[in-house]
């Protein structure tokens, strides 16, 4: 059975955008251990065509500052009161997983509600897709993750 993975990448090489920054997602179709690029999905464009308004990067009082974990990303959940966040999300509902550099908790929850996994990672698109498809392929086929061969 095939499934789709949405990836936030400006150059299609590195996972370099946060969920909030990404206006378009590269959609890959995966089956077993293989995957290929299906399309580039411009979610902002789609949203505006359908009249879904949503504001990008509305601050919620959370400035960048030093933390014990390195520099904090500006955190805003990407929506004012009224819950605009899901606007771009709903164009990803057909995906099994979303991959981006960072992803806000609000968005995570929205995704989880739809049983979509999310992976906030900083690596190449290839590495991410290899690892994710490896994982799903193993688990779906009831094969242990133990033996990497």
């Amino acid at each position, binding site marked *: 059975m095939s499934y789709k993975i949405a990836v936030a990448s400006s150059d299609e090489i590195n996972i370099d955008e946060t969920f909030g920054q990404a206006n378009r997602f590269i959609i890959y179709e995966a089956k077993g251990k293989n995957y290929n690029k299906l399309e580039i999905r411009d979610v902002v464009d789609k949203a505006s065509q359908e009249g879904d308004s949503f504001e990008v990067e509305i601050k919620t009082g959370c400035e960048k500052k030093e933390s014990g974990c390195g520099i904090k990303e500006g955190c805003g*959940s990407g929506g004012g009161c009224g*819950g605009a966040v899901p606007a771009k999300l709903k164009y990803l509902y057909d995906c099994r997983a979303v991959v981006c550099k*960072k992803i*806000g*908790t609000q968005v995570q929850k929205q995704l*989880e509600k739809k049983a979509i996994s999310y992976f906030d990672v900083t690596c190449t698109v290839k590495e991410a897709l290899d690892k994710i498809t490896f994982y799903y392929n193993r688990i779906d086929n*009831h094969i242990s993750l133990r033996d990497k061969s």
Partner: protein
Amino acid sequence: MALNLDSSNVGTRENRIGSITGYIGSLSDLAKQSQCGTLKGCSRCFSQSSTCLSSCALGQLSAIRDIAIIHHGPAGCSVASAGTYYLDKVMAKKRGVTNNTVYVGTDMNENDTIFGSAESLREIIIEVNRRYSPKAIFVTSSCATGIIGEDIDSVVDDVRNEIDVPITAVHCEGFKSRIWATGFDISDHAVLSSIVKPPEKKRNTINFKNFYESARPEIIEIFKKLDLEPIFLYCNSTVEELSHISESLATTCICGTLGNYLGNGLEEKYGVPYIRTINPLGVAGFETWLREIGRVTERSEAVEKYIEEQRAIYIPQIEAIKEKLKGLRAVLGMGPGYTFEVSRVLNELGVEVVWALAWHYDKKYENGDVPPSMEYLLENDVDFEASVADQQNYEVMNILHKYQPDLYLSRHPGSTVWAIKNGTPAVYVADEYMIFGYKHTLEFAQAILDSINNRSFETNLARRVKLPYTDWWYEQNVDKFLEEAGK
């Protein structure tokens, strides 16, 4: 949202109702952001250990009488079986019944992680059924079985025709959620999907979800006056009893976190109303809760009469003790089902809450509402510093060190000791009925007073021990390790 009872998998609490485990700010801000949908949840880049969802799930299920739990995983996962054995025996003895529930492990080893062990699991299920003839069987997974792709659903489906009692797979992969309270939902899901039957007739019973039924006799008394009979869940429940809970007039719970999945499930599937008030803790909580039960079961008159009688006895005593508690400052750390409830009671008793930590926070309960406990505080203009800390002791210690409150209240094992080492008197709100109704509210106030008035134990200890954190840590802001997720 709709519950899907056909699947053995429950979505994690994080995904269904949007829980978070990291937040620091004030109560009003938390509520505002929660209602706006703008609440930012944060993760930590440093954390201390907390709880596994399987402990919550199996702790609940294993309290049911005469059932079997088969925990498929390494011996550490099923180690709770030892505590369960003890608890089941002593709880049954207290109630004057017997409980022959068995909780076994499968002692999964290295080989199993490579080749799987579905066949062994199958044999184990058959053998447990042969040895003990349980009334229901729950087969549960662990982190290890999850990531080796063990197909427990198929094994369970496969043996179902060889076993003549309900058998169901219970998914307990700990890595799937940081919200351990999801385990409560998992247990409710298992009960709803495998044991509860559609109603045949309505009965004047009320489902009462709790932990260890310590207030059972007095609740039976209260409800007798209302011509209602409580069914306590799941401690000492029988499978037969559970199969009929759809026939009750209503479902209520001592703790929202514990009960909301079952309550909503029964309401959604069988039309059993779920009492969604603030919890019956403290005066306001108890009265609000009881009046709602009266309304839902059409017994308002009897409820008012009862309240009037009890008020006459207890309110003067509570008022008297309030005088002595005035001006005390408290910090508390509990699960979300209790933090905001206990904060309200403290406020009622005149104790100032300077900081409240909730181990996690459910933005919306199952039916989509903001938790009633919080709504109540906001309506009554009660505000204080609040954080969501998932049992992060180092954050608690930092707060205690900075605020030096008169009192720390906690509800989780192993947490109070750290407060007293700091020299702060601690009250362990262990029993879920410790603040229930007028009588226990009075007892609770007295317990606080007694703790404050004799601080010998904590001062003696605090003088002799060193705290385990560096001076560096005490100088940091409490949110040092909160990593805000980028948008």
